[in-house]
């Protein structure tokens, strides 16, 4: 592309450019500004530089350099994370893995594939679909998010209700440790390797323990049959009760999604409308899959449960095209908020399914209290809420109000015995809210683990755990929640 000779006196940038080449480093403000946030736009900070390594060796050399020179650094994939995990809060050197995007190996006999971290999630399924396989974790951003990022955040998705989140599909990792050492964990296919479960520890560590450079994932055989149901409800309560009853009837849907009225307004105003009625209170998108025998029976049971709870209209997708349209409408839901609001903040609370109606009522109260609209699009089947707080950052004070409203939503989730994050990670966004569910001792125990891997705390510092400075003032808050 356009030649970019290095024109800076910063010796670190010159040194990094020698590692990756001058076509693989950014350091001018006009370029760096595009890296001042990820999918979480509330906090922003310019990185020192962005480098684009093309091999594990280059990643290791960069990391070694940063380690030796005490330069803060972090890894970034597609930058679609929703909790700020890739925001260079401390002026980090951003190690962008978007050029390490190869599918290295497909081994269908053993149902696994090896990818580089920058490989896009959906591309994996697209690469093996014609042979009857797929990669199960399907975050809504799967069109563009990378598997490396999925590992860092332990990403979930609509179909994780039945198939589990990213960690259930990772078989092996190659990791560059914060001192530049390269290690391999798992990968040999042993289901329960001896020793500590390091794969489980690394997956979801939000880029604080190491940088993943190679990933072995599990592939699944396409289900023999698949049916999708769309149900419209006049009362949120009825929709919530339907969710509860479907699960307690012993059905395990592949996906069980809910959208409320504000969310429906957004997706219908956006690029992939389905024609949902605007006056319904909630809709459910339910999918069952598996062997053909028994699918129709499950669908009948689901339809019966919907009707028992006063569903206004319920239909089964008649074609793959119709099903795809329903899913595109759902999966682009967050971005669709742009059609009705300049900014949004998405929360990621988890609650026991049985508490759905009361927590949704509470979120509605929070919305009224802060004078901000809150849309709900979420994985109802596993109680993973996504309240989307709509606001306008250009209006003074509104960002702060949105943050406070979001935090209060999480407090409500924690108060009914739930959690503050289901799949988006803690990042910057929810680190203070970690106190809603952990005591100081529990947090210290976890940062002690981080210190083993990342003793200088140069890698992605200031994420995932609250800063010690605020321990005292929030100690009381956490104990009252408990």
């Amino acid at each position, binding site marked *: 592309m356009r030649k970019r000779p290095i024109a800076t006196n910063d010796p670190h940038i010159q040194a990094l450019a020698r590692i990756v080449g001058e076509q693989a480093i950014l350091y001018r403000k006009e370029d760096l500004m*595009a890296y001042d946030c990820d*999918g979480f736009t509330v906090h922003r900070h310019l990185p020192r530089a962005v480098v684009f390594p093309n091999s594990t060796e280059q990643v290791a050399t960069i990391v070694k350099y940063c380690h030796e020179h005490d330069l803060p650094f972090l890894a970034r994939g597609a*930058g679609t994370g929703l909790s700020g995990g890739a925001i260079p809060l401390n002026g980090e050197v951003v190690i962008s893995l978007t050029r390490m995007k190869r599918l290295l190996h497909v081994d269908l006999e053993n149902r696994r594939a090896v990818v580089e971290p920058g490989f896009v999630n959906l591309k994996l399924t697209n690469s093996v679909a014609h042979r009857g396989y797929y990669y199960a974790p399907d975050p809504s951003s799967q069109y563009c*998010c990378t598997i490396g990022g999925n590992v860092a955040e332990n990403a979930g998705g609509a179909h994780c209700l039945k198939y589990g989140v990213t960690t259930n599909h990772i078989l092996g990792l190659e990791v560059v440790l914060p001192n530049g050492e390269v290690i391999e964990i798992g990968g040999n296919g042993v289901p329960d390797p001896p020793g500590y479960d390091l794969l489980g520890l690394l997956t979801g560590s939000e880029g604080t323990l190491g940088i993943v450079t190679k990933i072995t994932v599990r592939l699944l055989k396409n289900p023999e049959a698949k049916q999708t149901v769309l149900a419209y409800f006049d009362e949120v309560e009825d929709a919530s009760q339907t969710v509860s009853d479907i699960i307690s009837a012993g059905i395990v849907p592949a996906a069980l999604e809910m959208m409320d009225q504000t969310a429906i307004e957004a997706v219908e105003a956006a690029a992939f409308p389905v024609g949902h009625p605007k006056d319904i209170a909630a809709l459910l998108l339910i999918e069952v899959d598996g062997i053909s025998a028994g699918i129709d029976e499950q669908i009948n049971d689901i339809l019966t449960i919907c009707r028992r709870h006063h569903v206004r209209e319920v239909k089964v997708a008649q074609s793959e095209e119709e099903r795809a349209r329903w899913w595109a409408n759902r999966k682009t839901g967050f971005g669709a908020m*742009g*059609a009705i609001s300049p900014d949004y903040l998405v929360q990621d609370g988890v609650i026991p399914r049985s508490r759905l109606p009361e927590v949704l009522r509470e979120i509605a109260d929070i919305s009224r209290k802060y004078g901000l609209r809150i849309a709900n699009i979420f994985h109802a089947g596993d109680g993973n809420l996504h309240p989307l707080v709509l606001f306008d950052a250009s209006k003074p004070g509104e960002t702060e109000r949105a943050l406070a409203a979001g935090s209060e939503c999480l407090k409500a989730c924690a108060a009914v015995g739930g959690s503050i994050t289901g799949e988006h990670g803690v990042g910057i966004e929810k680190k203070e809210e970690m106190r809603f569910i952990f005591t100081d001792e529990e947090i210290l125990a976890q940062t002690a683990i981080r210190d083993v891997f990342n003793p200088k705390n140069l890698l992605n510092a200031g994420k995932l755990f609250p800063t010690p400075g605020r321990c005292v003032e929030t100690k009381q808050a956490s104990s009252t929640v408990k």
Partner: protein
Amino acid sequence: MMSTMANERADSPACATASLGNYRFGDLPDPSKWADCVHCGMCLESCPTYEQTGEEQHSPRGRVHLMKSVGEGKLDLTPDLLDPIFTCLDCRACTTACPADVDVGGLIEQVRGQLRQAVPLAGWKALVSGLFLKGIFPHPSRLDWLGRLLKLYQKSGLQTVARKTGLLRVMPDHLAEMEAILPSVGTPVRRKYKHQPLIKAKGETKRTVAILTGCVMDVMFSDINEATIRVLTHNGNDVVIVPNQTCCGALHVHAGDRETGRKLAKQNIEAFQDVDHVIVNAAGCGCMLKEYPELFRNDPEWHEKAEQFAAKVEDVSKFLHDTGFKPPKAELNVRLTYHDACHLAHGQGIRQEPRALIESIPGVEMVAMPNADRCCGSAGIYNLTHPDMAQAVLESKMQHVPQDVELISMGNPGCMLQMALGVMKHGRNQKIVHTVQLLDWAYQKEEGKDVRI
């Protein structure tokens, strides 16, 4: 010095507000366009320049973020901003991918207008750009002369000499390559029909339509204009060639010269005042004509005229499809594939109509092209201004073009040149055709003529 400039501009009537963050020239970018973007990233994979670089500032989301940052006063209109803003192909694929319909292309064009005034072109770039964009494209007679020169070059044997002696090697590679795929120049329809302002429909006249002859189109691809006229008249349309029409201005608007864009727009709006249909066979031009209202956001009078004009504009494939074209009866017996021109698919939402035209021809076997609506890298004169990126984008496109076809069909002249280059570089033996040429071919065969493409 800048503040004086801002004050001067603020007095100009085309300027609604004096400035917006660090945007300080008239015709300010529309902040509601970036307000629609919530930074979700769904556009990333749709972007050809992001695919090549993996760099956020070369992605739609990143560019919107930068353009918004200037509007918020966090960035200035500096030379370092040229790269992210001008490396965009303006292919609009991101607009198709975006859940919130963010008009990235429109925003890019507005910001280029600002950036070009803050950082004017200098040196030979300014000379070449001024010569072509201002000196030649807007002037049909000069274009005509250029065409005659080109024809002389091709027919006199000079081309053969230049190619054999290696004279072309003094040109940069990408220009020499372009020379190699130049179509042979015919007679522009504007000249040919100069004394015949109306070409009668075959049989009963159902309606009268005007065609945009285009600037480069009529010089390089007059045969496509001829085919367009024949296909339109075959389907009951009287065709008029209004004399005062000019270049659509897309190249100017893409380059940030919105002032010339507006001048050309006004001339076209007036030239086509008395016709009901303006039929276009170049996707890029059609998209520009439909977007004339964007150029007059601060000028209510011309904005209304532009709206009325835009409503009359239609791409030839959609027009034929929607007005019930006659399916050809003769068989062509050919295997082909179809490439979606960006400004047809993403810019105008026209995807099915051209395919329906092609598939109506007996004996045509259509082979689907994966990612058919991925940019080929032509993008107006992008392949001349950004040859390396254009080449990389073309390379990626060629990976998806089926091998086992004889023809590659599309609806935009820029794409035709670029794809011809791709075919040549890959040593393939495939011909590039415009969709109306296929119909024309079938109709002619139907009439018993022995024609080949």
